[in-house]
Structures are given as structure tokens and as C-alpha cells.
């Protein structure tokens, strides 16, 4: 699932999933082993947003008559993660199986003893079910503990407005558009052409931060394999060349006047999607639902999807973990395995459109041949898979989210013209230190 789920408006279909009562005290004992035991147990699955597991629950309950599954869905990712962190820290109240977003899992890796080490539960035999970098995200730096099975990935592509491209004299076909920007410098050059050719107020890109984060994950993937923290969790914000060069490339986007300066998921950003306020948007799979929701019927067929500059990327995606505070850990691990299996992920794609993180699904026609009508019949899954497949694993430190929040803010201050790129960078060094607590 995705950061986009923060907005209350985006809690589509939450009601459908959340229509379950509180989990009742399970009456089973501790020695159950999946279907072997006949005692009735209840497993609570905690999720946010939309995971698309309804069909899977029914199937699992049918084949495991002793197990009853209740899902408690919190909708909003920010609130969910805070509540989950508190429950994990307190040692009670978390579900038997919990969903963990990729931005949050780095924080939980700080306390790996709070989760079942899946490597003790046969993870190593089935780890081919997921992309390598996906597994790396859920594994401690020493490689000995894995706390989550991958569910979905964001993938990354570039969504663009064909009508605005056409008006600015740019090609509109997705193959040709992809060829316009093999690199980010090409993307900036295209942006300048767009800005010169466009007639209205439209800008080329929505904001600096999406661009920056996409570039950073690519650059860090090439070398050195981490962003703000090295593998020993030392803050390396100002010494990691990948961070600096991503910052500088983003500054070039801003200097060229390409940004509409709209913070993602705010009302103004949504309005700009509807009104054609910007022409391109770094776009994970789940973002297509946002564009469709904000753009409404008037936007149908006006959007299309090309590959992202730099060729790969991913933004968002989740895991299923099993807290050690649970009463039925063995049964919970079995359920998590089932939900995150290649078949399970495909079922979730069918139900909610979440892009699988299993390479075994990528060639499946159900995924490969799926076309998104709203996006000019683009073969969405195929494009996003291309972005996700080639991504190299990047290590994110435990305090990644706090540092990222802080320095994104400094980037926005440059975008707003409050600081020069260099002033913003100098301040970002201070902000990163404050956020990391050094």
C-alpha cells in the first residue's frame, strides 16, 4: 500500500473491509500447528488502506475450518503506523498478522525481537517468491533476521497528460515519450521544451520531492547502496555522493522553472490533477488510482504512462509481519505465507490493483495483459513491473522517515524560492542531524 492512503478521502473501500467486530479472545492453546489442531482460533490481521484480501480470507477459512480471520483496518497509514509502533512497544494490542509499510519497516528492524524471525519459519526456502530488494528491505543489516513477507510494490513510471503534451508540441505516444527521457537530464530538457511550447499556466512536474526521491533511490541503488544512513546506521547525509547529486539534479528541475510547487496529496495538488495544472507525475502503481479519483470522468483518456527516467524505481509497498506478542504465532506465520504467496498477491491485484512483489507473477497473463482504460489503455502492470524489476536494493536506516521528512521540507523551501539550492542544502544538513538526533 502507499503513502497516498494518508488522506481520508482516499480510504476507498475501507468500509467494506473494516466491517468486522473486535477480535475476540481466542480460545485456542499455544500448540496449534495450522490445520493440525482442531481447536478453534481467531487470527487478527491489522491493515491500512486497501489490501484486497477478502477473497483470500474466505479461501483460507474454507481450507482451515479451525481458523477464523478478522481484519481490523485503520485506513490512514500515518495513524496506523503510529498506533502499531505503540502497540509493538507496549507488548500488546497488535494483530496476529500486521501489515508494515516500507517506510515503517526500517523502524521495526531496530527491534527485531518484537517480530517472529521468518528465517526460522522456512523463509529461506521460499525467498525466491519475492524480488531481492524487497526481501532486503525486511531484513536486518546483518542479514540474520527477516521480519516481513513482501505483499505489493509500488513500481515507478511517469504518468503524463497527453492533451498538455500535444498542446506543447511534444509526442503523445507512450513509446515515443519514453524515448524522450532515458535520463533525468533528458527529462529536464523535455521539460524546458514543454514550458516553451505550452500555452496555459501548466507546469511540467507537480513538485520537487517526488522527483528527488525517485532519483535518490536510483542513484543510491547504483552506489553505494544506501541513502542517509550507512549500514552501521551512521548519518551520512552530507558525505553520500548519491544524495548530493540527486539534490543537484532536482535543483536543476527547479532552476528551469518546471515545478508547479504543489505538495503531494494536498487539496491544491488534487485540484491541479483535475485542472491540468501539471503535465507529468512520478507515478507508482497505486498512484493511478489517485489520479483517477482526483481527475474524475473528465480526465479519462487524457493520461498515459511512460517509463520513468533512469529506467527503474519503486515507491511504496508493504510487508506482513508476525509480532512475537501474538498467541498463535505458528498459525499466523502460515496465514501470512498464504496471503503473500504469488497466488495471494495475484488475487490482491485482482481485488485492489496492488502490484505484486513476486517475480513469479510478472509473466502471468492476468497481470501482463491488463490494460488500464483510464490511462489510454496503457498496459500498466507491465510498465510498472519494468520499473520495479531492475531496482537495486537500497538500505534505509532506522530513522530514514524522520530524516526524509525533514530534508524534503528544506527542498520545498528551495522550490518556494525561500532559499537558494546551496542554502537549502546547508540547512538540510542541519535538519538531517536534528532529525537523526546527532
Amino acid at each position, binding site marked *: 500500500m502507499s*503513502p497516498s492512503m*494518508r488522506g481520508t478521502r482516499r480510504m476507498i473501500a475501507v468500509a467494506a473491509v473494516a466491517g468486522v467486530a473486535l477480535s475476540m479472545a481466542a480460545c485456542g492453546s499455544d500448540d496449534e500447528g495450522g490445520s493440525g489442531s482442531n481447536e478453534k482460533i481467531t487470527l487478527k490481521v491489522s491493515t491500512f488502506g486497501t489490501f484486497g484480501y477478502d477473497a483470500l480470507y474466505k479461501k483460507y477459512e474454507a481450507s482451515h475450518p479451525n481458523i477464523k480471520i478478522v481484519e481490523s483496518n485503520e485506513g490512514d497509514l500515518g495513524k496506523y503506523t*503510529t498506533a502499531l*509502533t*505503540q502497540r*509493538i*512497544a507496549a507488548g500488546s494490542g497488535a494483530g496476529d498478522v500486521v501489515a508494515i509499510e516500507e517506510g515503517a519497516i526500517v*523502524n*521495526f528492524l*531496530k*527491534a527485531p525481537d*518484537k517480530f517472529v524471525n521468518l528465517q526460522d519459519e522456512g523463509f529461506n526456502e521460499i525467498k525466491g517468491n519475492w524480488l531481492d530488494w524487497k526481501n532486503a528491505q525486511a531484513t536486518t543489516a546483518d542479514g540474520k533476521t527477516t521480519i516481513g513477507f513482501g505483499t505489493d510494490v509500488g513500481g515507478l513510471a511517469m504518468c503524463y497528460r497527453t492533451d498538455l503534451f500535444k498542446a506543447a508540441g511534444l509526442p503523445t505516444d507512450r513509446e515515443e515519450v519514453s524515448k524522450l527521457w532515458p535520463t533525468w537530464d533528458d527529462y529536464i530538457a523535455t521539460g524546458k521544451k514543454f514550458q516553451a511550447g505550452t500555452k496555459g499556466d501548466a507546469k511540467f512536474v507537480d513538485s520537487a*520531492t517526488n522527483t528527488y526521491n525517485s532519483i535518490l533511490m536510483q542513484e543510491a541503488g547504483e552506489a553505494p547502496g544506501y541513502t542517509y544512513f550507512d549500514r552501521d546506521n551512521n548519518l551520512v547525509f552530507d558525505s553520500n555522493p548519491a544524495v548530493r547529486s540527486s539534490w543537484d539534479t532536482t535543483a536543476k528541475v527547479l532552476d528551469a522553472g518546471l515545478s508547479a*510547487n*504543489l*505538495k*503531494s*496529496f*494536498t*487539496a*491544491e*495538488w488534487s*485540484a*491541479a490533477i483535475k485542472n491540468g*495544472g501539471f503535465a507529468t507525475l512520478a507515478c507508482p502503481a497505486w498512484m493511478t488510482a489517485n489520479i483517477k479519483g482526483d481527475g474524475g470522468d473528465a480526465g479519462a483518456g487524457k493520461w498515459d504512462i511512460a517509463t520513468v527516467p533512469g529506467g527503474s524505481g519503486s515507491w511504496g509497498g508493504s510487508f506482513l509481519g508476525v509480532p512475537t506478542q501474538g498467541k498463535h504465532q505458528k498459525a499466523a506465520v502460515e496465514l501470512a505465507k498464504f496471503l503473500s504467496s504469488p497466488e495471494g498477491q495475484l488475487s490482491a491485484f485482482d481485488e485492489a490493483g496492488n502490484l505484486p512483489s513476486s517475480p513469479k507473477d510478472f509473466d502471468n497473463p492476468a497481470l501482463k495483459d491488463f490494460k488500464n482504460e483510464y490511462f489510454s489503455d496503457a498496459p500498466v502492470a507491465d510498465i510498472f513491473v519494468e520499473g520495479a524489476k531492475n531496482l537495486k536494493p537500497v538500505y534505509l536506516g532506522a*530513522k530514514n*522517515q*524522520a530524516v526524509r*521528512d*525533514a530534508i*524534503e*521540507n*528544506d527542498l*520545498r*523551501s528551495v*522550490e*518556494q*524560492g*525561500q*532559499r537558494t539550492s546551496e542554502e537549502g542544502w546547508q540547512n538540510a544538513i542541519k535538519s538531517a542531524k*536534528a*532529525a537523526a*538526533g546527532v
Partner: protein
Amino acid sequence: MSDITAPVTPARARSPWRSRLSRWDQKGSPYAFVSPFFILFGIFGAFPLLYTFWVSLHSWPLLGEHTFTGLDNYQKLLQDPQFWNAAKNTLGLFLVSTVPQYVLALWLAVTLNRKIMARTLFRVGVVIPNITSVAAVTLIFSMIFAKGFGLANWIIGWFGLEAVDWTAHTWSSWLAISMMVDWRWTGYNALIFLAAMQAISSELYEAAAIDGATRTRQFWSITLPMLRPTLLFTTITSIIGGVQLFTEPLLFAPGAGAIQGGTLRQFQTLTMYLIENGFTRFEFGYAGAVAWMIFLLVLIISLINILLVRRISGAD
């Protein structure tokens, strides 16, 4: 023997028991009657306060090891520019919002105290903003101050001025946030002033009018001095509200990183900085230290207030 003493003993025993009971009743029951408050205050007030202090003496990440660090957090906090920035913003926003608010509230109260048409309707009307949900108010105001399609920029456009990115600058964000605060609280304060004005004896005004005092003169020489205790009360409640200012600046620039209060942290208040440390950085020890600093700040301001009260009552 027992036949004789038996009826006596209970009577003897009852008498001291009863008197003791009655003494307990006299001495003890007042405490019993007030105890629910203290028990609840102990659980929900004093204990969290002291426990927060205990937490603030530690390095206390939400997940992971807790280690005792003594006063390190406080030492760090005193040298933390982000903390002092938040303190400056909190006091600044308080002043910028409260001063015009009082002027406006007094003017409203004076107006509503006159014989105007549909007086009750207007009197009820001024408190309506106060009963509106603060989140709703903030969302509406964020729309008004939106950069691209906001009402404020549209009006500015009539005068040929450039559109303003309201959340970007210090002055513009403070102005917008102050307007949200004032929108909610001006009417409330006006009503309190009005109530106090009605308690002022009309004889004073009549006498002043006979002496030839103008309405303006009456306001400065009678109304305002008589309102002093009320002004003090509203000042205290405003300070309490001002130090807790949170929802308006948080929702003014929503989305990722909203807790930082603007790209330059230009409208991050103390409570926002507290939450940022607790729930973005998950450093409960440091957040606890921020909480105690806010507590000390309120304590200092309250002491200044008490001194002011003494001076004013001395002046009377």
C-alpha cells in the same frame, strides 16, 4: 453477672464508637467529598506529569533500549535552535493574534451593548464561529489562502497585486493563522466583555453624560477600567490557548511533513515540536523534555500574570 452487664456494655461501647464516627465524619468526609478530583487528577494529571519527567531523563526511543542520561536532554534542548524557533513562533503567533483580537472584541462588545436592531441575533451570531469545529475552520481557511485558486489571492488580484504563496513566508503564514485563531475566539471574548459591560452601573454613564463626556471618553474612562478583571481573565485563557496552539498551524499546510510547520519551520509551535519529537522521530525522552519546558514556560507566564493581578488589585 453477665445478665447485669450485658445490656450496659453495648450502650457503653456504642457511645465512644458513635462519637468517634461523628468526629471522623466531621474531619474526614470533606476530604472524601473532594477526593474524586484528586484521585482523578493523580491518575490523569500528576502521574503523567511525573512519569513524563522520568522519561525525559532517558534516551527513550519508542522501540529499542532505554538508557538513563540524566539532564542531557534538557541540556541539548537549551541549545536546540529548532526548539527556540518553536518557542519564538508560539509567542509571536500569540501576540499577533491576540492584540487585534482584543481590539476587535472590545469594539464588538461596545456595539452589541448599544440599542441596535436584532441585538440578540447578533449576540448569538458572534459566538457561532467558536462552536464550529476547529479542523473545519482550518480547512476552509486553507482553501481561502490557497496559492492557486484561493479567495484571498483573488481579492488581492483586484488591486493588481501579485498572488501570494501564503504558506511560504513568515509574515503571510502568521497572518493567515492569526486570522483563523481570531475567527474562532473574537466573538467568544466579545461576549465575555459584553457580559462584564452590562454589569457596569448605568449611573456612571449617566453621570458622565451629564458632565458632558463623549462616548469615546466614557469608553476610556469608565468601560475600560471597569473591565480590567475581565481583561485579565481573558488574557489568562488566551495564553493557555496560545501555548497550546496546534491544529490551525498543523492543518494550514497539510500533507507530508506538516508537523514541521512550513518549509522554514516558520509556523511550527511548541506543541507541534513536541509531537514531532514523539511521533515522527519517536524520541520520547526528548519529547518529554520539550513537554516539561512548555510546562515551565506556562509556569513563568502564570507567575507574571499573578504579579499583574496583584498590581491591579493594589491599584484599585
